[in-house]
């Protein structure tokens, strides 16, 4: 018997190596997509999953994240020219957060670089970047970029009980792993790489294994996490956590420079408050001259963390310098009610010269079909909204 060919077989989304387990845990069919993979918005309940990140532990499938293995004698030089940070300082088995820019100093993407060996790196980022990386190799003799995105199954494993769960799973010594460190463990007939990294601002790890062992990793982790509250979380919960941590998202805080149509609708690292990632001690890197000029001039906008009066999320609000809302000086990029900080918080692009003055957000909301608006005072916060001690502590403690 021949089975009927699937209609639209050519348009089906890719399934992550964890899909078989994930689908059982997603009773609401709450799927969207990321880089061609079927990707969960949430599994059981967004709010609950968010609290797993802050209270227990949870996994977020980052298989769809782009992973590039960069090797060869010129690997370090190539990456050093690509990104704004000093790559020569990155030690083996360490990870660092980076951005890379166009010649005009506009941000193409952000991501992390893992130093896996003397001339072996892994670069991860949210959007495909292979064409730009190929260009970045220009002029080097010995550098090779391999797109390993589909070959590596990866899970972000975040939350206060994550370390305890990994201990339970038998990863001995995991509690000694420092933030941004990497450890590897024998796993079945392969190797499991664990980095103490994440996008939630809380204690957390990222687990990397070859795609064929994805399900094994899932099963071992979930067996170990049974008594530690393990639960998969989707993009909704992640987005809440990252905003509390003050992390930026593509197409929320920044528009990828290579895909930007309108003049200066993309951003510089200084505008994104990522000036600390730009190392002018390096003699050359992409965008250096433009960024140096920008630094001298001062960025037009600066991304700010706002604590906003009241409880209405300031989604898509404009920011004004006066209560009467006559002078517009900025716009909100992401906003939410934070259940752990118990405050209405936001990230907003504000004209740098107005940052020291009074700030007001005009917030629109609706109630049973009627729309309302109110003006709320905003206060700029220097530190992340959420930064528990355990996120930085080694060992991090049981919860």
């Amino acid at each position: 018997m021949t089975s009927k060919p699937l209609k639209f077989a050519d348009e089906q989304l890719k399934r992550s190596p964890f899909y078989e387990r994930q689908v059982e845990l997603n009773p609401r069919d709450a799927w969207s997509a990321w880089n061609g993979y079927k990707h969960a918005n949430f599994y059981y309940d967004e709010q609950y999953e968010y609290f797993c990140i802050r209270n227990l532990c949870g996994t977020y499938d980052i298989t769809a994240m782009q992973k590039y293995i960069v090797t060869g004698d010129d690997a370090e030089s190539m990456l050093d020219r690509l990104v704004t940070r000093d790559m020569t300082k990155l030690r083996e088995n360490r990870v660092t957060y980076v951005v890379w820019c166009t010649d005009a100093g506009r941000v193409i993407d952000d991501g992390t670089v893992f130093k896996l060996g003397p001339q072996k790196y892994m670069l991860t980022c949210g959007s495909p970047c292979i064409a730009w990386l190929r260009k970045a190799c220009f002029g080097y003799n010995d550098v090779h970029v391999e797109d390993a995105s589909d070959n590596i199954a990866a899970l972000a494993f975040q939350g206060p009980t994550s370390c305890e769960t990994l201990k339970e799973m038998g990863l001995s010594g995991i509690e000694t792993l420092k933030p941004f460190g990497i450890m590897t463990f024998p796993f079945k007939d392969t190797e499991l790489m664990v980095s103490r990294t994440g996008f939630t601002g809380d204690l957390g790890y990222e687990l990397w294994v070859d795609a064929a062992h994805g399900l094994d990793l899932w099963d071992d982790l979930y067996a170990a996490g049974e008594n530690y509250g393990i639960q998969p979380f989707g993009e909704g919960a992640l987005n809440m956590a990252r905003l509390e941590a003050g992390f930026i998202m593509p197409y929320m805080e920044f528009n990828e420079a290579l895909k930007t149509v309108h003049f200066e609708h993309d951003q510089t690292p200084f505008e994104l408050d990522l000036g600390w990632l730009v190392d002018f001690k390096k003699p050359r890197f992409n965008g250096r001259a433009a960024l140096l000029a920008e630094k001298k001039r001062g960025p037009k906008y600066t991304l700010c963390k706002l604590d906003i009066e009241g409880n209405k999320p300031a989604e898509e609000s404009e920011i004004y310098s006066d209560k009467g809302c006559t002078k517009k000086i900025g716009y909100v990029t992401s906003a939410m009610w934070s259940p752990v900080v118990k405050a209405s918080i936001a990230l907003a692009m504000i004209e740098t010269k107005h940052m020291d003055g009074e700030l007001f957000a005009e917030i629109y909301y609706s109630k049973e079909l009627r729309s309302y608006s109110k003006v709320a005072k905003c206060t700029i916060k220097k530190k992340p909204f959420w930064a528990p001690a355990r996120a930085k502590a080694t060992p991090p403690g049981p919860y």
Partner: protein
Amino acid sequence: MKKYDAIIIGAGHNGITNAAYLAKAGLDVLVVEKNDYIGGGAVSRELHNGFTYSNCSYVCSMMRQAIIRDLDLPKHGMMVIPYPGALAMGENGEVFHSYSNDEVAYNHTRGVSPHDADGLMRLFADLSRYAQVIRKTLMRTPPDPTSFKPRDIKELLFLAKEFWKLGEREIYEYVRFFTMSAADFLDEYLENDLIKAYMAVSGIIGTALGVYSPGSAYILLHHVMGDVDGNLGAWGLARGGMGSISKALEGAAKEYGAEIRTGAPVEKIIVKKGKAVGVALENGEELMSNIVVSNLDAKRTFTKIMDRNDLPEGIYEKANNFKFRGSSGKVNIALSGLPKFKGAAENPFINRSSTYLIGSMKSMEKAYDCWKRGRWSDDPIVETVLPSPWDPTVAPPGQHWMSCFVQYCPAELADGPWTPEKRDAFGATVINKIERYAPGFKELILHTEIRTPHEIEQEVGLTEGNIFQGELTIDQLLFNRPFPGYAQYRMPVKNMYMCGSSTHPGGGVSSACGANAAREILMDLGKVNTVPEDDCYDD
């Protein structure tokens, strides 16, 4: 001799809230607490290896957002996580699953009763409407309806305006609602007995009324007017137990400079020339202050730690007659594993949260009959909650603790005083009931803490173990709480105030009483107000 600006008697969560706000205004504040630990009814203690029980209150919903934010309680360790679902168990093995997802809840309820699936939506809309008005009064001092002070008139007008917004028809409904029974009220929406019983439980929690007693409808409202992150009626788990809320308040109070002394029971409020001037501790020490604030309930304040001769005529009697009628018990149990309730769905979100062992409307009324006869219910209503699957800090991994709130258990037994044997027999009644619904339960038990109203009164000082510091009936609410004419936190002795749950808006872990009292005190002292004027989170 040192003289404080204010001494607060009792480090219940309202006492600490009051202290925090007075200290924030720059006052030199001391809190004196009889126990060696703080918290009163919002307390968490480790009584068995690695198990932290919330010994009294166990779920959070009424805590005022404005206060959490204003005192930055998250910074001091407060986190509230909403419970993901609930179960209600009937008499003959029926189980009603309450899901937090609207569509799922609808499908499930429809399977039980299509009528009630619709009815519940209407019920929640009506309850939300009623709750809205009440919520607006929580952070306000009740007006005195007999006063002609501009402020009272203004406040009365505010109330009138809020009611008027409901529309004429609803005003009639509202007034009727205050005097109705939970059963009569629910009959207008629901037909299924188990669903009705599940909703009716909120009408009798902590109160010596039955589901058919007039007044129980308001208690129901009192239990759904709270919220977690704006979700009206939701209840949440405080990470680390309810004691973490008191600790967070303590953190805030201390940051503002308040001093808290534990192990310091007050014997008497010292009154000189009609003015409160300080307190005398049981150890003989005397502490002086310009004002004295009592976090104790009305009866305890006026009949135990005050001299009758210091009070104006009639107050002692009023305090003595303040209605308590303790009716609840609490059993906290450490377990070696998770209990399994018969008939519960294989769904950890549902079968590991709250489980109500209620039976039926009839059996609930029978349980109340026992209380009237001076006995604990032989088939009590038990609300079990398992905090540990959701809170890694309160039990060792893989082990659990269960909070059991039990209705009804009288403060005074018909056959003589409470004894340890009777207390244990009460505990056994509860445990046997759970065992019937979750076979094998008893084998999981590692430790139990059994609390009748007697224990609750002895430890927390809640008279007759009444969880609200006095019944929440219309005669003891709003401008009648604690007594007509004294609802504005000022007491009949000069420089003396009350700030506990015996005052408006009543019991529950809300911090509202303590905050409202602080606002009145600061007004009398001519200080700048440090207390949020309003919750402003409802518009």
